[in-house]
């Protein structure tokens, strides 16, 4: 009897709550946003997503956001089965994953959220190398490379053994580095000291006077006194003359090429129909500028975040990175190039839903 009265009261209260939209059910401040957001993917993007999830749950007490770390590839395999709402990715979706997506009819919205610079570092006692060209890096790292001495890297370098350190072959960092310097993702020599844990690489390089290594910029910043940073010359005078050191400014404006890369989240449009996911992604993009910097990454520009938000609001599906080379292209350029169709036709998604690779707007 008592229980049925309570049920009746609840039924009565429900519309009241819906109208009032706030203040009901235990003191949540901003409305009654509740539900789950399931995220998985890259360990590189994880710190940003964790920061956003933390802030989001402070703002919305009823929300249940969970973040896993399966790696970009592992995350995509779950995302493309519809098991997660959002995938963190430290590289763009691969063509094999695109095929899987189109086969299973899974759509996605690709949203860049920050930049990560890859740094090339040596031991602080190394007084001969200050800058390497991309060609030299390629000669060192390409598959079958026989360069095992610093004197073979560049005439004039001393006769010292060369010891190489890099992330393991499963990481997005390794994929990106090899693509940027050797032109093919995953193609490199295999006789280097590899570790999935970047802190191990820091230990390795800082303890070996002959070392040369690469990893994410956040790991350099925390250990700057134990490492020496090298500048990179991409041989393209239009894109920064000569040697360029990685700094937030050079990573953001793309002159630290080709070793600055974008980090992404991929959102399923179906999941974005839920209010909680929509609100979360909105929150992510509007807070990313502040939070990405806080956890050690380089944020996009304010203008680029506006474009990203627009891309999400318009639900532009598909990848911005088709067959064309994309190393060294600025994000703003890509975002505007692939903000398609509906501007002229007024028909959202008409272009994008046809194929997963969104078409560039013809000029």
């Amino acid at each position, binding site marked *: 009897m008592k229980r049925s009265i309570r049920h009746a009261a609840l039924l009565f209260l429900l519309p009241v709550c819906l109208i009032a939209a706030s203040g009901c059910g235990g003191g949540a401040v901003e409305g009654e946003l509740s539900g789950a957001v399931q995220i998985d993917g890259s360990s590189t993007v*994880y710190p940003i997503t*964790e920061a956003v999830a*933390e802030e989001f749950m402070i703002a919305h007490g009823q929300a249940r956001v*969970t973040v*896993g*770390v399966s790696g970009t590839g592992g995350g995509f395999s779950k995302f493309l089965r519809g098991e997660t709402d959002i995938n963190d990715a430290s590289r763009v979706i691969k063509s094999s994953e695109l095929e899987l997506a189109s086969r299973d009819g899974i759509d996605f919205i690709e949203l860049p959220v920050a930049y990560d610079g890859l740094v090339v570092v040596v031991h602080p006692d190394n007084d001969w190398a200050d800058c390497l060209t991309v060609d030299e890096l390629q000669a060192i790292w390409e598959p079958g490379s026989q360069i095992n001495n610093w004197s073979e890297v560049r005439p004039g370098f001393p006769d010292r053994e060369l010891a190489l350190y890099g992330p393991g072959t499963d990481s997005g960092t390794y994929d990106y580095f090899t693509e940027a310097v050797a032109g093919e993702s995953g193609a490199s020599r295999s006789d280097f000291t590899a570790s999935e844990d970047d*802190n191990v690489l820091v230990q390795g390089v800082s303890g070996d006077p002959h070392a040369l290594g690469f990893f994410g910029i956040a790991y350099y910043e925390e250990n700057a006194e134990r490492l020496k940073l090298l500048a990179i010359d991409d041989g393209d005078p239009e894109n920064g003359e000569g040697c360029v050191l990685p700094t937030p400014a050079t990573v953001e404006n793309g002159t630290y090429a080709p070793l600055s890369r974008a980090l992404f989240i991929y959102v399923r449009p179906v999941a974005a129909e839920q209010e909680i996911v929509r609100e979360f992604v909105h929150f992510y993009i509007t807070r990313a500028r502040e939070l990405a910097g806080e956890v050690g990454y380089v944020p996009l520009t304010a203008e680029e975040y506006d474009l990203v938000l627009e891309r999400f609001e318009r639900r532009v599906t598909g990848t911005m990175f088709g067959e064309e080379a994309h190393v060294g292209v600025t994000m703003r350029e890509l975002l505007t190039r692939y903000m398609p169709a509906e501007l002229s036709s007024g028909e959202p998604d008409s272009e994008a839903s046809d194929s997963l690779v969104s078409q560039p707007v013809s000029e």
Partner: protein
Amino acid sequence: MISSQRYDERIERRRRRGLIFSGLLFVATVSGLVVLITLLVDVVMQGAQWLDWDFLTRFPSRIPERAGIKSAIVGSIWMILLTAGISVPIGVASALYLEEYAPRGWFLKLIQININNLAGIPSVVYGILGLTLFVRFFALGRSLLAGALTMALLILPIIIISAQEALRAIPSGIRESAFALGATRRQVVWSHLLPMSAPSIMTGVILALSRAIGETAPLIMIGALTFIAFLPTSALDPFTVLPIQIFNWTARPQADFQSLAAAGIVILMIVLFLMNLSAILLRNHFEKYRLR
């Protein structure tokens, strides 16, 4: 005369050799402990500054000062209770069947070989199995239950083998006298074999669960989460566990997170210690029962 002189010399030499031998054994024992203690002291010293009540009662955070380990502790406890609840009954029952009921023959041998092999399979393989079977086929999702079932599979071989050893150690005279008094096999199992073997079985269970609480690979495989700022309320909720949280912190660039990881390791060891302690108390209880 001469022979007795030699005898005195020899016994002296033999005593010396005996001393050297026992000294070597002592060094062997201590060397393992020294490494362990060095490691413990190092971890405790690094993590001590972060170990306080807030650390235990807060959820993970990007800011080290705000970070805590609550969801991981609760997740680990859920995980271990569920895993024990699933694997102990099944493991002991399998051991009883194999030792007491199964007809001897090629089939029994085949099962036995398989169980022994399963005990040596790398844990990540169980993760793949758990992902396909529990997470996807049975559609349990990335839940505590899916994780516990995977862990249960992982430690079942260890529990079965140790329970079998325990049963084998009971003198057959005990079984025979019970049979002679007219007891059925079921009665023998319940009144004699289980109570007598319980302490040894408990030891096996402790070892197996200690392995389970430290495992990460299979849980990452089935998709246990790293950031989760709420507690599970049922076995079907998402979760994280202590080793995953620790692993995540060690991989961060900021030095503070390394210390947080050390603090997490201390907590993990305390949980492990409490778990073993309660199991040992339970075992002593059974041992008293056996003496009566």
